[in-house]
């Protein structure tokens, strides 16, 4: 490739295939703001001259507009370029970013109180519950030691058993309840609240009994008191068992299948869940969304909107019969006329798509060849050879930087034609390349990430575009799942429509086939001459 030897960066420019004659220009990477209409693009570098053009990153205004950059030289081909929808530049903030930042700030302040309230209530209750049996056995000796009957080995045995049961309870509660919160739910988690109320009532009733029957009357039978405390601990262990069953085990058996459809491109997945409330089911869906659905790419959706707009744009309704306010009649007439109109937009679409596919395949072929050639040059140095290495020894990052320029242009062109250029910055590409080199991956393995869109988790966090979701549902979100429920998870750019279907009741019956009964005959039609 002619221009690659002097590359030190990675450029974004919009007219592509005609610039193969560029020589020796220093190019660098810049992303632009979202624009949905053709605008005169300003280009970097110049054509066909052996000159070096350095473009310092200019501080762009808020809602950065490209057309205000006047110090750039216009390219020969700027009129032929197509506008691509781009992300935000590193130096400007778009409207969307502002909205997002402000939303983040206000949400994080408001909900903290709610979060911590639940946590403090639960931990206070837990502490109370844990200290209660200890208090039960410690209070009598403190208050009326002299009158207490001495209690020998039996009590000591009970003390030991109570200590171990408390330890088990402590470990179990820690394992079950003290886990990092995964999400903020809109409503209180019903089962947990019920369990807390149950524990509270339970402990209060025990204290009541203790206070009235033992403290007031100064019961002498210490063994009875210790046994009472041990029975409290046993009951707490059983409540813990109940908590495990209600909170963890009940939803393990799959009862429903959820169909999740993304509203913008119809991509859908199915998940199996057990008995969960709607908000918990939504949480499961969202956690799986980030790993299963391909990343949302708004650039891929614009074409269909343009077509739809063009289709209806050409029709006008004129009222010939005088003023009549027949709005529905007019709209129906328009729809009918639009349907009958013989336009060739389907033809355009077909040829456009065929052409686009051809171009994508061509660029992909160039990219694959470029990457394979680049990878050939890298060789892993064995440990013994490291001392007597002939050339310079590089670590993975340097090796990546060394071979990157030879494939940069092909990769950039491919990303642009598949409209993924916003999701891969030069830094991320270099990192991935270093990663692949370190782990000895083939060029195909390196390319796989760019050839097909991956799930959202694969990309940088700032590309995820939203972690704030709203749950829209007809029913209360703490209701359990039922067959036929539909709820919607909305984020800023798109929504996920979830349809709940029940797994059918399966009737499975048995049939025994004796292995000896597998017998076969040959059916022929033979002909014999007589």
């Amino acid at each position, binding site marked *: 490739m002619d221009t690659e030897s002097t590359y030190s960066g990675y450029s974004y420019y919009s007219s592509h295939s005609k610039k193969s004659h560029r020589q020796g220009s220093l190019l660098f990477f810049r992303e632009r703001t979202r624009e949905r209409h053709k605008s005169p693009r300003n280009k970097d570098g110049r054509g066909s001259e052996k000159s070096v053009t350095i473009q310092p990153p200019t501080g762009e205004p808020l809602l950065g507009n490209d057309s205000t950059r006047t110090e750039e030289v216009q390219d020969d081909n700027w009129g032929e370029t197509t506008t691509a929808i781009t992300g935000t530049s590193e130096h400007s903030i778009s409207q969307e970013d502002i909205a997002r930042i402000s939303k983040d700030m206000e949400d994080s302040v408001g909900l903290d109180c709610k979060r911590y309230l639940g946590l403090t209530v639960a931990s206070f209750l837990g502490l109370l519950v844990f200290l209660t049996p200890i208090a039960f056995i410690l209070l009598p000796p403190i208050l009326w030691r002299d009158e207490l009957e001495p209690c020998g080995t039996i009590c000591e045995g009970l003390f030991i058993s109570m200590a171990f049961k408390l330890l088990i309870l402590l470990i179990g509660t820690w394992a079950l309840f003290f886990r990092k919160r995964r999400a903020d739910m809109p409503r209180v988690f019903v089962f947990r609240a019920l369990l807390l109320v149950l524990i509270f009532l339970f402990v209060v009733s025990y204290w009541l009994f203790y206070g009235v029957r033992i403290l007031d009357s100064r019961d002498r039978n210490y063994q009875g008191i210790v046994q009472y405390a041990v029975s409290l601990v046993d009951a707490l262990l059983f409540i813990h068992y109940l908590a495990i069953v209600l909170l963890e085990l009940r939803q393990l058996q799959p009862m429903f299948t959820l169909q999740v459809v993304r509203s913008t491109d119809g991509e859908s997945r199915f998940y199996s869940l057990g008995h969960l409330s709607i908000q918990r089911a939504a949480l499961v869906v969202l956690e799986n969304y980030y790993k299963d659905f391909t990343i949302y790419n708004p650039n891929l959706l614009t074409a269909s909107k343009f077509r739809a707009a063009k289709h209806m744009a050409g029709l006008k309704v004129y009222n010939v019969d005088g003023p009549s306010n027949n709005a529905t009649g007019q709209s129906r007439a328009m729809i009918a006329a639009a349907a009958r109109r013989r336009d060739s937009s389907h033809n355009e679409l077909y040829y456009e798509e065929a052409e686009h596919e051809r171009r994508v395949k061509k660029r992909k072929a160039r990219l694959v060849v470029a990457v394979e050639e680049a990878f050939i040059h890298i060789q892993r140095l064995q440990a013994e050879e490291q001392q007597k290495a002939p050339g310079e020894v590089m670590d993975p990052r340097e090796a990546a930087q060394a071979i990157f320029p030879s494939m940069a242009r092909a990769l950039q062109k491919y990303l642009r034609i598949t409209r993924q250029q916003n999701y891969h910055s030069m830094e991320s590409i270099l990192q991935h390349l270093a990663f692949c080199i370190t782990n000895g991956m083939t060029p195909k393995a390196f390319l796989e990430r760019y050839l097909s869109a991956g799930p959202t988790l694969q990309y940088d966090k700032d590309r995820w575009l939203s972690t704030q979701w709203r749950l829209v549902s007809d029913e209360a979100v703490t209701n359990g799942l039922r067959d036929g429920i539909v709820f919607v998870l909305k984020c800023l750019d798109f929504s996920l429509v979830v349809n709940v279907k029940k797994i059918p009741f399966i009737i499975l019956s048995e049939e025994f086939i004796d292995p000896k009964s597998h017998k076969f005959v040959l059916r022929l039609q033979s002909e014999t001459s*007589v």
Partner: protein
Amino acid sequence: MSYIPGQPVTAVVVIEIHKLRQGENLILGFSIGGGIDQDPSQNPFSEDKTDKGIYVTRVSEGGPAEIAGLQIGDKIMQVNGWDMTMVTHDQARKRLTKRSEEVVRLLVTRQSLQKAVQQSMLS
């Protein structure tokens, strides 16, 4: 043939074949196909594809069968009084090639005959 099991067949032909001696063997000059151990659906001559009877699949030129008037596609019902509608292929071959018999009398049905009889009955 439009042969309904249990109902009498309306048109049968009696064919008497005199076996020809060829060296060691006595030949009749035709080939048979079918039998209860064979696959009836592959029979090209039968009208009812579940018919497992013995059919004449080939008649050699100038052989004793052709001289006696046997035609291709005939279904053989009896050979010398022995029933041929429910026999295996091998049993049929044996009944036809008994060395002790020089002459065999075949009872044969033919589709064309059957149709002709039916037409004459209707008209």
